[in-house]
């Protein structure tokens, strides 16, 4: 590697580290289908105490969002739960 | 074997061979006398019974048990016939054979260093009868023939003697209640006389096993040799071509001996008459 190359590109070791970091973020946040199903049923169980929920239309996903102005990404849970009717008294 | 009825003992049970052409009614007397003859030898044991040569119906089986009970002290705990999924039952029997040693301390499988006189004496006197018996058993045991190589993880188990046309690679294993003949290279594990027959033997054209077991005896390949020969297949092949010649392993004074499978071995067994 020539001295001038330092200004052109990162070493392959550094590239490896950066790529790994990216891959691991998505690996770690990518929940298995079973876990997603469990989260889904737990949320439904809790919510149905207070409201009548459209179980079929429930949407659940984990995505990365920027949490600060430096652009750091963190996983976040998004849920879209259509409510049909709210119970007036909690069970 | 012209006898209409014969009995063979193995470690876990007895095999009763019946003539397939003579009606059962006519065999009853022979069965009774055979068991009466062998009663003292068979002793007072719990055993499994395997009927070979013909199928018996329920009534005949019950009758057979009565005959055995009346003529010996044996306690027959189960009956298997030839069509039974034998291999499974056999595999289980072999696997559960309790071994006498606490921790395994096998001997090294080196060529037995005997003078020609000693070898002659060993093979002709003390063992001739035993080997003749073993050969005879081979003659009527429907030896199983396998064509093809046995690779690592593959295993053949048989209650009959085994003939392999192919190689047994390291990690492959051959298990037989009788003897084992490998018409190829034996580089894996061979277990002959798996149900206790110490007269069984193992023969291979290229005899270089990791481990040989005959009945209760175990021998393993020489560690030093393993090191030298780990240099790759090519060097191994070349060495074989030089060493050459089929070899045989058999038990001698409770340990496993190894020698060339030559005319001397065959002659001493009265194989040629």
């Amino acid at each position, binding site marked *: *590697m020539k001295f001038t190359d330092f200004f052109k590109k990162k*070493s*392959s*070791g*550094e590239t*490896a*580290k950066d*790529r*790994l*970091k990216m*891959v*691991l973020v998505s*690996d*770690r946040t990518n929940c298995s289908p079973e876990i997603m199903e469990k989260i889904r049923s737990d949320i439904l169980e809790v919510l149905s105490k207070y409201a009548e929920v459209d179980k079929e239309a429930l949407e659940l996903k984990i995505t990365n969002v920027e949490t600060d102005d430096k652009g750091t990404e963190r996983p976040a849970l998004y849920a879209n739960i259509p409510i049909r009717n709210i119970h007036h008294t909690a069970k | 074997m012209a006898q209409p009825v014969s009995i063979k003992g193995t470690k876990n049970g007895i095999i009763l061979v019946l003539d397939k052409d003579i009606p059962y009614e006519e065999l009853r007397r022979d069965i009774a006398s055979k068991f009466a003859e062998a009663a003292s030898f068979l002793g007072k044991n719990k055993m499994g019974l395997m009927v070979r040569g013909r199928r018996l119906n329920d009534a005949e089986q019950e009758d057979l048990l009565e005959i055995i009970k009346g003529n010996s002290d044996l306690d027959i705990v189960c009956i298997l016939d030839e069509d039974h999924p034998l291999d499974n039952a056999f595999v289980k029997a072999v*696997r*559960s054979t*309790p*071994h006498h*040693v*606490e*921790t*395994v301390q*096998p001997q090294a499988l080196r060529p037995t260093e005997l003078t020609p006189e000693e070898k002659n004496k060993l093979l002709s006197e003390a063992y001739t009868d035993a080997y003749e018996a073993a050969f005879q058993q081979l003659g009527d045991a429907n030896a199983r023939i396998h064509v093809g190589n046995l690779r*690592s*993880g*593959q*295993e053949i188990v048989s209650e009959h003697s085994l003939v392999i046309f192919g190689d047994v690679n*390291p*990690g492959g*294993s051959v298990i037989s209640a009788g003897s084992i003949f490998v018409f190829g290279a034996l580089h894996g594990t061979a277990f002959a006389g798996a149900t206790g027959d110490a007269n069984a033997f193992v023969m291979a054209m290229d005899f270089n096993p*990791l*481990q040989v*077991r005959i009945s209760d005896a*175990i021998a*393993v*390949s020489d*560690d030093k040799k*393993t*090191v030298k020969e*780990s*240099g790759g297949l090519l060097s191994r092949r070349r060495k074989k071509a030089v060493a050459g010649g089929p070899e045989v392993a058999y038990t001698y004074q409770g340990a496993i001996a190894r020698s060339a499978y030559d005319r001397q071995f065959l002659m001493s067994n009265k194989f040629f008459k």
Partner: protein
Amino acid sequence: MGEVIVVTSGKGGVGKTTTTANVGMGLSMLNKKVVLVDTDIGLRNLDVVLGLENRIVYNLVDIVEGNCKLAQALIKDKDNNNLFLIAAAQQRDKNAVNEEQMVKLTEELKKKFDYVIVDCPAGIEQGFKNAIAGASKAIVVTTPEVSAVRDADRIIGLLEANEMKEVQLIVNRLRPDMVKRGDMMSADDVVDVLAVNLLGIVPDDEEVVVATNRGEPLAGNTKTMAGQAYMNICRRLTGEQVSFLDLDSKKGFFSRLFGK
């Protein structure tokens, strides 16, 4: 009571079995009584690395199925009276054993040995579950490559989910010359990404291949860098504080300066 340690990695071919053999050998040289358990049923290799392949009569499945007594399946090492092996069955598959049986076995072994070291198969299926079942400590082996580190991360996640008390990392086959050039991640890089404790760094060493050819692990062979590295790992396992090897000491200063 002894300690049960599982050696795992996720990815195959990073050196789990070599590590298991060397850690076992090294600990036994420190006068610890050690048993190595190969759980890679169907694809066993630990026996060959230790040069004990010709001594196997009974194996892990035989113990579990009650075909033999535990003592009968313990294969003593060629030269080392403190080191024993329980081989995997070659004729069966991973489902021949379950987690409960492994817990029972390791409990039994713990009573007799200072260290029970379990060699885990590659992958995250039944074999992995069996291997970690009775362990209280895990050694994760990785090489400084993206694929191996990624799988190590997955494994660490699974170990944590299974409430493994302690997880430590070995970075295997590191090439100091490549790290210097910037063409390989350093052990620090890997530790930084995975965020676990580092147990040791083993340099890429031809002698490891030679030792495997011979069936004699090189732990404790102070003439080789890898042999020293494994011995240091063993000392750390016994609680000793040992500083990390200077992997560059072999390469002369001038060769580094002028070499490619």
